[in-house]
Every structure is written in structure tokens, then in C-alpha cells.
């Protein structure tokens, strides 16, 4: 993995050396290559997500063959380490020095914000394959910035409706005290109250603290109809297990954004049974596209695809739209952007299209953990569109 990246990096570096020579001759870019940059985490907590996204993306582009439109595709890679402090440096490196046509990045919202700031100056096309910060397609939105994943507003918005339909009108919301958690809470509250529910208490744990015992005791004494929460990764495993161990699961049902059980079900085990979540994808979606995608992914990488792989795959599909429109010449930026704005993506998650603010308008599914699998039990919300607060595209 890292060796092939290094090789690509060396190839990129030598291409760059040639490029600076050409620019002296008054030509900005070689016309026979499509330059794609990955700015993703390849080390640290999110390393696995970065790899899944790149795998998905490459799988989508594999359909184009070796030389689409007579051009080679050159890949450039930078490991952003999910470190917001270095985001600007890394974004500059890949956008200015490597001079890529399009950047696929990234996972961490803080890093994405730094990256967008740079992209606004350079005008480089950006496709965000995960980072959910509302601002990316809201107050910070830009013509050249697209997202193929979700906004933090989206996954918890349909949750309230599902809970009220199940007869739970008084709930407590628990999350980490950080950007994504507060955005998830804000949209949950909107959706829940619109459906006639009431959030009787918000409980926060400092990020990334995973000591939940105090919160669980508080929940037991508040006796809400249900608990909704936003956690992911290691924290999600611990919260779900602690919740069950405290004996709360049988009396107060647990709901959450889909990331609560995504990719961590095995570690949660029995404790996760029966948890209901809402997400824009589920491994078990029974549509032809998803079955084909999962089969192809398994063949190519000898691994099961997850939601991150799908988001990367869709980033690839989106780029293909732009390549088709411009016959592989992404320097025709206006045409490329138009094609991406008009895109309808036939995704493993189901058909979705781009909103005015460059965020997917997509279905959200209701999932329930049954026998250790996130099983689709319905569609929570069809074609949910992020309101794009603060964006004037």
C-alpha cells in the first residue's frame, strides 16, 4: 500500500519536474494526463476509512479502462493524518505543487474546512467523500466543492420521525461535545420536534472521553421514552455496551445516527441487538447495483465494502460525469462543474442527485440490528435534502 503510494509519489515528483520545465515554455499543464489527488488519512484512527474511500474510488474509475479519452490517469497521494493543524499545508501541497485537476478528500471535518479554504483560492475541483461538517455545503460552500457523502444535518434528521412513529415522544439526546455532535443534535431536535416529540435533556461527554457511567445513571433517573445518540468508532462500541450493561436497553430503547453501528457491530456484539438507526446506506440493501458493487469490491480487495467505500465509489462516479462532459479535459472547469451539478448518480445506496448546494439529495433508511447485521426495515425519509444554511450558490 504505502510502497505503491511512494512509487506514485515518485512518478508524480518526476512528472512535476518535467512540468516546471514546460511551464517555462508557456504551457501550464501536460494535456495527456488526468491528475487526481487523494488527500485522505492513511495513518491514525481514520486510516481504515481513507483506504476504503480510495478503494471505492479506484473501483469506479476502473470502468473507464486504461486510457480514457486517450489520457492516462495520474494519482497523487497525501496522508492528511486527520490533523486539522496541517490541513492547509497538505492542501497546498497537493493543489499547488502537484497541481492536480481534482482532489478527493477528506474524512475529518476540521481538515476538510482547511482544505476548502485553499480550494477557494486555487479553484481546484474538490470532491468530499466523507467529512460531514454542515459548513462545507453551507456557509463555506463554493462552486468547485462537491460532496458525495452526507452533511451532519442529514443522518439524525429523519431519526425523530422514526422515534415518534414508534411511540417515543420524550427523549434524551447524548453525544460528544464537539462540532459533529452538536450539528447532529441540532438537526435531530428539528426533526423530532417537527414530528411532535420533545427533547427533555441533552447530555454531553467531552470529546473523545468514553466514560459514560454518569450519563447512564442520569438517563435512568430521567426515565425518557427513548434515548437518541450520536457516537462513532470506539466510543460507539463502548456506549452501546455500557448502555446494555447498565440494564437500560430493556426499558429505554436506544436510537442513533447510523454511524453508531456502522463497521463496529462485531465489537458491539449482543449489546447492539435491536438498536434502530438511520443512514444513507446499508450493507444489506437489496438493489442490483448494490449487489454488483459489493461483489466487485469483494473480488478486487478481498474485503467487504462499507459506507465509506460507497462514498468513495460515488466520488468516482461523479468525476466520471465531469470527464464525460469534457472528454477528459478538466481544465474546462465551467463545463465540468455543470456536469457534476446536474449529476444523477446510480449509486449502491440508490439513485441520488446533487443539491443546489452540492450535497447529495438522498434516501435515508431505517436500520435495525438483527443477529449482528444492520437490516433495512424501511425508508425513513425519501430524497432528504440538506437546507444548505448560509450558502448562496
Amino acid at each position, binding site marked *: 500500500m504505502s510502497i505503491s503510494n511512494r512509487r506514485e509519489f515518485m512518478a508524480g515528483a518526476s512528472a512535476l519536474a518535467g512540468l516546471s520545465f514546460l511551464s517555462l515554455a508557456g504551457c501550464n499543464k501536460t494535456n495527456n494526463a488526468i491528475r487526481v489527488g487523494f488527500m485522505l488519512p492513511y*495513518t*491514525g*484512527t481514520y*486510516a*481504515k476509512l481513507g483506504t476504503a474511500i480510495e478503494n471505492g474510488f479506484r473501483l469506479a474509475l476502473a470502468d473507464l479502462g486504461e486510457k480514457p479519452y486517450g489520457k492516462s490517469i495520474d494519482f497523487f497521494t497525501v496522508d492528511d493524518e486527520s490533523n486539522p493543524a496541517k490541513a492547509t499545508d497538505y492542501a497546498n501541497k497537493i493543489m499547488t505543487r502537484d497541481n492536480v485537476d481534482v482532489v478527493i478528500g477528506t474524512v475529518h471535518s476540521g481538515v476538510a474546512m482547511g482544505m476548502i479554504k485553499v480550494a477557494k483560492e486555487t479553484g481546484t475541483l474538490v470532491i468530499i467523500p466523507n467529512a460531514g461538517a454542515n459548513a462545507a455545503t453551507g456557509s463555506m460552500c463554493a462552486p468547485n466543492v462537491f460532496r458525495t457523502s452526507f452533511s451532519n444535518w442529514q443522518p439524525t434528521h429523519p431519526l425523530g420521525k422514526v422515534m415518534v412513529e414508534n411511540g417515543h415522544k420524550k427523549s434524551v439526546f447524548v453525544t460528544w*461535545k464537539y462540532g459533529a455532535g452538536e450539528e447532529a443534535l441540532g438537526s435531530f431536535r428539528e426533526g423530532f420536534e417537527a414530528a411532535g416529540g420533545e427533547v427533555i435533556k441533552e*447530555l*454531553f*461527554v*467531552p*470529546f*473523545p*472521553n*468514553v*466514560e459514560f*457511567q*454518569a*450519563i*447512564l*445513571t*442520569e438517563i*435512568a*433517573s430521567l*426515565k425518557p421514552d427513548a434515548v437518541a445518540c450520536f457516537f462513532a*468508532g*470506539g466510543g*460507539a*462500541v*463502548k456506549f452501546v*455496551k*455500557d448502555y446494555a*450493561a*447498565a*440494564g*437500560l436497553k430493556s*426499558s*429505554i430503547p436506544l436510537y442513533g445516527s447510523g454511524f453508531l453501528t456502522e*463497521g*463496529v457491530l462485531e*465489537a*458491539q*456484539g449482543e449489546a447492539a441487538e435491536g438498536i434502530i438507526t438511520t443512514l444513507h446506506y446499508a450493507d444489506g440493501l437489496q438493489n442490483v447495483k448494490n449487489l454488483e458493487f459489493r461483489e466487485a469490491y469483494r473480488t478486487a480487495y478481498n474485503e467487504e465494502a462499507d459506507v465509506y467505500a460507497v462514498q468513495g465509489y460515488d466520488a468516482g462516479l461523479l468525476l466520471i460525469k465531469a470527464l464525460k462532459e469534457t472528454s477528459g479535459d478538466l481544465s474546462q472547469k465551467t463545463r465540468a462543474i455543470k456536469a457534476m451539478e446536474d449529476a444523477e448518480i446510480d449509486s449502491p445506496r440508490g439513485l441520488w442527485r446533487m443539491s443546489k448546494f452540492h450535497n447529495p439529495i438522498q434516501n435515508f433508511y431505517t436500520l435495525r440490528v438483527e443477529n449482528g447485521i444492520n437490516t433495512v426495515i424501511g425508508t425513513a425519509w425519501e430524497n432528504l435534502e440538506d437546507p444548505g444554511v448560509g450558502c448562496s450558490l
Partner: protein
Amino acid sequence: MDAATVLIQAMNGIQYGLLLFLVASGLTLIFGIMGVINIAHGSFYMIGAYLAWSLMGWVGSFWIGLIVGVTVALLLGLVLEWLFIRFLYDRDHLQQVLVTYGLILIFSELRSMIWGDDVHSVPIPELLSGSIQLTENLAYPIYRLWLSGVCIVIAILMFLGIQHTRLGMMIRAGESDREMTKSLGINIGLVYRFIFALGVSLAAFSGMISAPISSVFPGMGSQVLIVSFVVVVIGGLGSIKGAMIAALLVGLIDTFGKVIHLDIFGVNIFPEMSGMSIFALMALILMLRPQGLFGREH
């Protein structure tokens, strides 16, 4: 909040505090007695947790895994001291931080290579898997109570070991004057190697026994590192008693900070700023007693 809830929350706080003590105890030994700033302490905790996870898979028993894991950690500690740490005793703190930071990077990469980046969980051993019903809808896992018991036993053993044994005497002598201790014919190098290994195995041991309730994930080491330093600094360098009291204080403040509502001059202190509370406590204590609650002035 009714009386029963307050009591249960106090129990939560004490239980969390005891766990913090266990995690911080190894750091107290290494930082407090040897004077080495070991920021790789969290990595040893993480290694312990991953060891618990993979040993569970291999030997199938939590208890045998525990023994094997602690032995592995002890050996690792001896090797690391011999390879790196023994060169650091006379260096300044910055160089110690650099070397041990290097260890963090190495262990994090090794962890990624050996165990991957997935989140795992370790099942609670059969013997302790039940729970006690506290209120009509709240139960308390027996494992957590057992954990508290283990922490108390270790605290007592450490205290007795340092205050009342020959080895403890050598350790304390080395702490107050290394050169003099050496000239009295005590092999202080060997004593230090042993303390470092003990510190490493304490960290790994706490990682192993917390694994069933904390889940096992890549960033777990850095989480405990910071709070461990807070505990050691509040308690005073090298003081086992101080670390225990500081850990309980931090546990209680952290617990109540999350659930009580407190406004001062219209500004919400709890729970809005609960993430800061333990650091505020540390700052306050450093202002009033720079050597920590039970630390000696150097």
C-alpha cells in the same frame, strides 16, 4: 437529583477514580521516582488492551491471558529500559519526551501492522458477567465492582511495597540521591530497570483489565495519557497516596461535572465546561501547591 441518584453518581465517580489511579500508578512510578517523562505510557496501556484481545482469541481464557500479557509487558519493559530509557536518566526532560514520543509512533505503527485499525471488544469473563439491580431500571455490572477491588488491592500493595520493603527502601534512596545510593553498593541501574518494567506492566495490566469495559481501539492510549498526567501532577510526583487521592478527586469531579447544572454569574459552568473541569482543578492546585497535594518540594 434525588438522594439515591447522588449516591449512585458518587459510586460512579469513585469507581472511575480508582480506575484512573490504576492507569496513572505506572506513570507515578516512572515519572515520580525515576524522573523520566514517559509519554509512551498510554501506548503501553493500549498494547495491554490489544494483548488482552488477541490472547483471549488464542488461549480462550481471560485469566491465563492476563498472566501471559503481564509477563510479556514485563519483558517488554526490561528490553525498552535497556535499549532506550537507561540513557535518559541524566538528560533533560525535552530529550526524554522526544525519545518516548518516538516510542508512541513506533508502537502505534506496530499496532496498525499487527492488529489493524479496527475497533474490537473483549468479553467480560463468565465469572464476573452478572450485574446488580440498583434501581428499578438501572443495573451495575459486577465486573466494574471487581475492577474497583483490584485497584484498591494494587494501591495497597504498591504503598506497602514502597514504604515497607527492602526494595522499596532502595527505590526511595535512589529517588532522593542517586549517586549516594550507588556508592553504598546498591545496583541502582538494575533497580531502575525493574521499576520501569513494573511501570510498563502496570500500564499494560490496566489496559488489559479495562479492555472488557472500554473496548479496544487505536486512539485509546492518548486518551488515558493526558488524564494520567493530570492525576500524577495533582497528587504530587512519586506519591502513591497523592495519586490515589488525586484520582478520586478527578473521578468525582468528572462524573458530577457531566450531570449537575451550575451557573456562575449567568455563565453555565456545568455541564457546558465539564471537559475543562479537571484541568481547572489541576491549575488551581498547581497555583496553591506547585509540588502537588502530597509531593515533596525538590
